[in-house]
Each structure stands twice: as structure tokens, then as C-alpha cells.
């Protein structure tokens, strides 16, 4: 099952780079959805020996939530905001990609400082998780549209969740569910706020949101 985990982790990294490099917002949301699904399947491949129902339920919940429900929410927000055209990031694409590469390196650097926990599926999980977190932050920092900032937050959550997989056994189910619920509620409220901003400001570009300053 080692190579399946490697494949899924590579898929996660690719999804990140795709979001960083691509224009249309719809495509980005779909990429994040795929990333969610990949993460949903990851626990199955990481701990093949455990066939407990608890693991299946969590995986199913993750796939359902991250793959379909949250992207659905974001698509609805896009439809109301009637913005299809691509998003103009604050920095050019190649610089975005370049920074993305640097952050992957940074993630691996920090992971190198930390001793490898013995019973994790593969040594790749921690660096991938850290770099996904950093990429999520990068997306938030470099995007002009507040919707893509929400998207960046989602990538951040995915990164943290990949890290959570290492201790799938350790973390009791209730907490897992609580985390999922909170993330979902977070995205839901962000979606409603984005709608209000759209109605109030007539656009969801971050350039409008600067009149609270010293």
C-alpha cells in the first residue's frame, strides 16, 4: 500500500501547484475538491491493516464533506457573485509558482528538523503536510479575490488534516467529527460573509476592503 500513499500525496502537492498556477476560479475549486477526496482515501492506504468501521466512516465523511459539500458551497457563492472570469493575483503566476517551490523546500526543511515518528505510513507525510499548509497561506496572501482567500484557507485545512492522519488511531472519533464540523461551519460563515460583501461592495475584490486603517 506504500506506493498508493505516495501517489495520493503527490496528488495533494499537484493540486496545490495547480491552484497556485491556474486562472479560472471554478477550476481551482475543483482542484481543491480532488485534493479533499485524495485526503479522504489516504487513511485507508496509510493503515491498511485496520479494517475498523470507525476508519471507514471517517474516510467517507471526509470524502463527502471535502469533495462535494464544501465545493458546492463555494460554487453557490461564485454563482451569486457572478464572477466566472479568472482572478488577477497580486503577483504574477511564475513568481507564484516560484514561491510555491520555495515553500515546498521550506516545508521539507522544517520537517527535516523534526525526528520521524516511528509508525507513520511513509516519511513523506510530514513534509507534504507542512508544505500544503504553507501553500495555503501563500494562496491567501497572494490572491485579490476574497473567495480565493477562503480557498487558501481550505488548502491550509487540508494540509493540517493530512498531518492529522498520522495519528488517526490516537485521535478519538468525536474530536475528528468536531474538527470537521468546525471547518465546515467556518467555510459556511465565510460563504455568507462573502455574499454580504458582494451585496455591500458590489465586488469581492480585496482592494475594496482597505478602509479600516490607522
Amino acid at each position, binding site marked *: 500500500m506504500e506506493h498508493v500513499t505516495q501517489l495520493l500525496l503527490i496528488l495533494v502537492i499537484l493540486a496545490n501547484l495547480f491552484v497556485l498556477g491556474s486562472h479560472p476560479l471554478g477550476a481551482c475549486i475543483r482542484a481543491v475538491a480532488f485534493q479533499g477526496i485524495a485526503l479522504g482515501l489516504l487513511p485507508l492506504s496509510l493503515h491498511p491493516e485496520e479494517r475498523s468501521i470507525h476508519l471507514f466512516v471517517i474516510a467517507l465523511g471526509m470524502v463527502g464533506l471535502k469533495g462535494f459539500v464544501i465545493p458546492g458551497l463555494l460554487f453557490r457563492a461564485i454563482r451569486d457573485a457572478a464572477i466566472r472570469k479568472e482572478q488577477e493575483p497580486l503577483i504574477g503566476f511564475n513568481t507564484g509558482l516560484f514561491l510555491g517551490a520555495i515553500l515546498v523546500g521550506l516545508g521539507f526543511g522544517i520537517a527535516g528538523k523534526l525526528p520521524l515518528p516511528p509508525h507513520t505510513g511513509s516519511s513523506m507525510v510530514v513534509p507534504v503536510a507542512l508544505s500544503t499548509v504553507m501553500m495555503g497561506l501563500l494562496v491567501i496572501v497572494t490572491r485579490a479575490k476574497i473567495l480565493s482567500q477562503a480557498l487558501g484557507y481550505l488548502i491550509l485545512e487540508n494540509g493540517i488534516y493530512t498531518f492529522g492522519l498520522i495519528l488517526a488511531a490516537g485521535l478519538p472519533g468525536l474530536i475528528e467529527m468536531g474538527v470537521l464540523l468546525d471547518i465546515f461551519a467556518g467555510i459556511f460563515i465565510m460563504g455568507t460573509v462573502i455574499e454580504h460583501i458582494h451585496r455591500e461592495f458590489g465586488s469581492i475584490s*480585496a482592494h475594496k476592503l*482597505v478602509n479600516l486603517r490607522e
Partner: protein
Amino acid sequence: MTFLGLSLLMVFLGGVLVFLPGLSRRAASLTHTVLVLAGCGVGLVPAWQALAGQTLSSVLVSWSVPGGQIELGIDALSGLFLLLHFVVSAAAVLFGSSYFEPYEEERSLKSVRFFLSGFIIAIALVFTAQNAVLFLVAWEMMALAGFFLVAFEGHERQVRRAALLYFVATHLGTLCLFVVFGVLGMRAGSFAFAQMAGHPALLAASTPIFVLALLGFGSKAGFVPLHIWLPEAHPAAPSPVSALMSGVMIKTGIYGLLRVLGLFAQPPAWWGLTLGAIGMCSGILGIVWALAQSDVKRFLAYSSIENVGIITLGIGIGYLGVSFHNPLIALFGLAGTLWHVVNHGLFKSALFLGAGSVLHATGSRDMNQQGGLFTRMPLTGCCVLMASMAICGLPPFNGFISEWLIYSGAFHLGQRQELYLFVGAPVLALIGALAVACFSNAFGAQFLGVARTERASAAKESDWRMLLPMGALTGACLMIGLVPGRCFPALGRAAAAAAPLSQMDVLGAIGDGGPLLSNIGLLSGAFLFLATFLFLMRQGILAGKDVAQSSTWGCGYSLVSARAQYTASSFAQFPVSLFRSLVDRRVESDRPKGYFPTGARFRSSAPDLILNRVVSPLVERSLAWMSTFRRLQHGKVQLYLLYMFVFMVALLFWKL
């Protein structure tokens, strides 16, 4: 000590009962005045006993605050300050009862009376607190009550600015005191002054404690670089409050300094020198700036700075005496200091009450618009005359006694080998001469000559509630001036409590100090006797002759107008021009133009040199520098997240 508790209770009741709903305005003023006067009277008893040498038992109440302990005790030093405090408070409150009457219609005076009582209680607590935490609490409550009293006429922009400056200055000073008492408490293991006194562990941290104590207490006492709030706050406060502040609140700084420095068994010599240097430059700068003022209360505020300079010079001389193990110099210095504290408390509050009575009568504080008030307000005039003579240190009054002590301390110091020690006496003489210039100018401009404005000519004498306190204070000045010999032993005891002097050599020094002072008493008596003899002689001579009235000699020019007189600014123009570099004197005038000039205008003011040339530019520049940082909060949420991200990565690389 129960008397002290009783007096504080009565003063507190005086402040609180004012809020009773049913009370009419007159009844409220009456209850407040009577209760506070009674409280002050009762408070005098323990102070007098402590000064007379009885050791009073201290009150000890457990207080569940970390490190705190309610411990009140009165030794000779606190007794002296308390005595001054209660006398000046009684005078100020009695004066206030009639001074505040015109304000009665437009606003309710409940808050002022409450804060006045709070102010008096807080100062009494400062003088009797034997525990550092209680001292700090009382200290800041005094500052708070003072702030609300200064901001009494808060609707004027100038008063608000002064109140703000006062509040910031006292708070910064208190922060220094936090560290002083924090370090003392931690090293001595407990916050009680008794445990701290002479504790061996204090020696290691003596220099930082000394510097911070100078900053903390100096800002309250008004040493020159830290004095900037004083000339702003005193004119802004109502007159009875400025009398109380200048007479007593400034002395809490001196008391605190003596108390903290007294904790050290062996003070190094450079302490005395620094104190002396600060005293001298405060004295000279204070009186030079006073000379250039035309607002009477600002003038008196600067003169307070000068007198604090003299007091600090005395402390410096006393501490030099202690470190040179010469009990005579130590006693002369410290006894002179404490005596000048009491004397200044008496005549400065009398002068402020006089200024208040003049303000009450003419409605203006500008000395250039008064004149000829002596004929219209003779009693106020007499009190202010006597107080002015006392503050200049002229013989028959008490100012001369304390300056004489400080002088003899300075002379004895001058006889030692070190070169720099001879400077004390001549500097004090320069300050004395400048004081004569200032106060003859102030008294002359206000009370003598012809009334310069119709308001001055329409002035009426104030009622008995204003005159009685002034009269009592100046009477006390004359009394002390005539019989100094009897007060000296009490002062000696207070000085012994202030500095680490062994009991034995203090009594010796008191022994030979006493007769000298009685000589001076004799001297003043001889002078008064001779003056009356000459007066009677002249009456005899003139009995037969005709005594005519005519106009002043105007070199033949008969139509002399009142405006031709020398005003306070013109009188001070020549001496101030010699100190041009020290005085930031601003003159706005348009000179008469052409052959037939229609009009001319001249207005001179002397804003505070340190405040305008040093502090304000400094504050502006630091504000400008700080506001460059404010651009960091520019509203772009992405960059906010970038700050977080960079900070986290930095932490990871630094600490991981």
C-alpha cells in the same frame, strides 16, 4: 494615634456628607468647612506630640493585598510635615469656603469639596505611611485628587492642557517610585520601612535607587528639569488648591526623598553633591524665570521651584555633613532644610491665598493690570507684604532663620579643603538678592502706586474668611522669626529622624545651635524696638510742623497718567536682560509709527524654557517617528497574514 484616625475620619465625612441630597448649598459649604477644620485641628495633636519627642504607637492593620500592610506611624519627621499639612489645609479650606462662593451659582461644588477632602486625607496618609505599598497607594491617590482639583475649570483649553501635563508628569514619577520601592521591598524582604532601614542588602543597589528616587520624588518636588508641570498646574488650579499644592504637596516629594535616602546607613559623598548641585540650579533658574513672569500665580509657582532648590541645597549640605561625619554641618543643613520646608509652607500658601483674594477682588491674575490695591485692600496688602518679606529671608521673619541655618551649614562646609564646596553660600546670596528683586517687583506692581485699570480701582477688601487664614499664616511667620530658639530642639529631633545621625552628637549640635538662634531673635527684637523708637521720634519732630499733601514729583510734568508707572514687566526687563540666555522671553509689540502715532501695543510673556525648547520638540519628534510605524496597520488583510507567517517561520528557525 487614635487622634490621627479621628481627624482623617472627620475630614472624610466632610467630603462625603456634601453629597447628602437634602443639603442646601450654604449648609453643604458650612458642614464641609467645619468638619475639615475640626479634622485638621484634631490632627495637629499627634503631630505636636511627635515633634515634642513622644514616641507614638503605630497602627497596624492586616491588609490582604500582596506585600501590603496598613501601618501608620508618626516619628518626629512625619510629625513636622503633618503639622505643616494640617495648618495649611485648615487655612486653605477656610479660605476656600468664601473663594468658591461666586462659582456656587453656575455649577455644583460637591465634586470639588469631595476631592479636596480626598486630597487632604491622601497627603496625611503619605506622611504617616510606614509601608511602601500603602505609601504608593496614598501617593497616587494624592496625584488623582490633585488632578481633579486642577481640572476644576476644565472647560478652558489651557486648564485642560495643564491638568493633562500634571497628570502625565506625576504618573511618570510614580512609575520610577514603583521600581524604587519594588527593589527596596525585594532586597529587604519586606515592604515595611522599619525593616528596610539600614538593611545591609540595600547597599548593592544604592545608586539605581538614588537616581530613581531623585527622578520620582524630584518630579513631584519640582527639581528643574522635571518641574515643567508646576508652572502650568498652579495657575490653572483654584487659589486654595494651589496654596495647598505649593505649600504641602510639593513637600511630599521632599519627605519621600528624605525617607528613602534615610534608609541607607552610610550615604556616599557624591549624593550630597548631586543634591546640592540640583538645588543650586533649581534655585537660580527658578527665581530667574519667576522674575520674567507677569501672571502672579505663575510667578509664585516658579518661586516655589526656587524655594525647593534652597531646600534641596540644604539637604545636600546636610548629607555632605553626614558623609564627612561632621554632626554640626549635618544638623545645620537638615534642620535648616526642614525649617525652610515649614516656613515655605506657611508664607507660600499665604502668598497664594493673597493672590486668590486679589483675583477674587479684581478678577485678573495679570500683575500689569493691578496697582494701588494697598489703599483698597489694606489687610490683604499687609499679609502679602509680610509674606513677601518672609520669603525673601529678611530678618524679622522666619525665612531668615531657616536661610541662616543653611548659610552657616554652607559656610562650615566652605571651610573644608575641597574647592567646589565654597559655592553654596554665594549662590544662596544670589538667589536671595534675586528674590528681593522679584518680590519687591510683585508687591509693588500689585499693591503700590496708582490703579492701572478700572477693575483694580474698583477692588474691595475680601471678607473675614479670606483674611483670617492669611493673617494666621503670616502671624505664624512673624512668631517663628521672633522666637526661633524655642523651636530649634524640635527641628533637631526631626533632622535626627531624617538622617542617620547618632543621637549623641545631635544633642551636642543642638546645644550650641540654640543660643546662636536666640541671638537672632534678640536681633529682630532690637530692630523692631529701634524702628518704633525712630517712628515716635519723627512723630515728635513733626508734631509742631505742618504736613502737606501734594502730587508726586514728575519733573514738572503735571498730567502724569497711571500708565506711566513701572509695571511688573518693565521693572523686570533690566534684570532679565542680563539672563537673556536662560529666559525664553517672547515679546509681541507694534511700536508707534510715524510722527503722530495712533497707537502702540506691547505684550510680553515668558513661557517655560525647558517645556518649550526641550520637551515639546522632543514629544513632537517622537510622535512623528511613532506615526511612521502606524502605516503598518494599512488595512490589507493579506499583509497581516504575512506578518503572522513570517513571525512563525522566524520562531521556528530561531527556537527549534
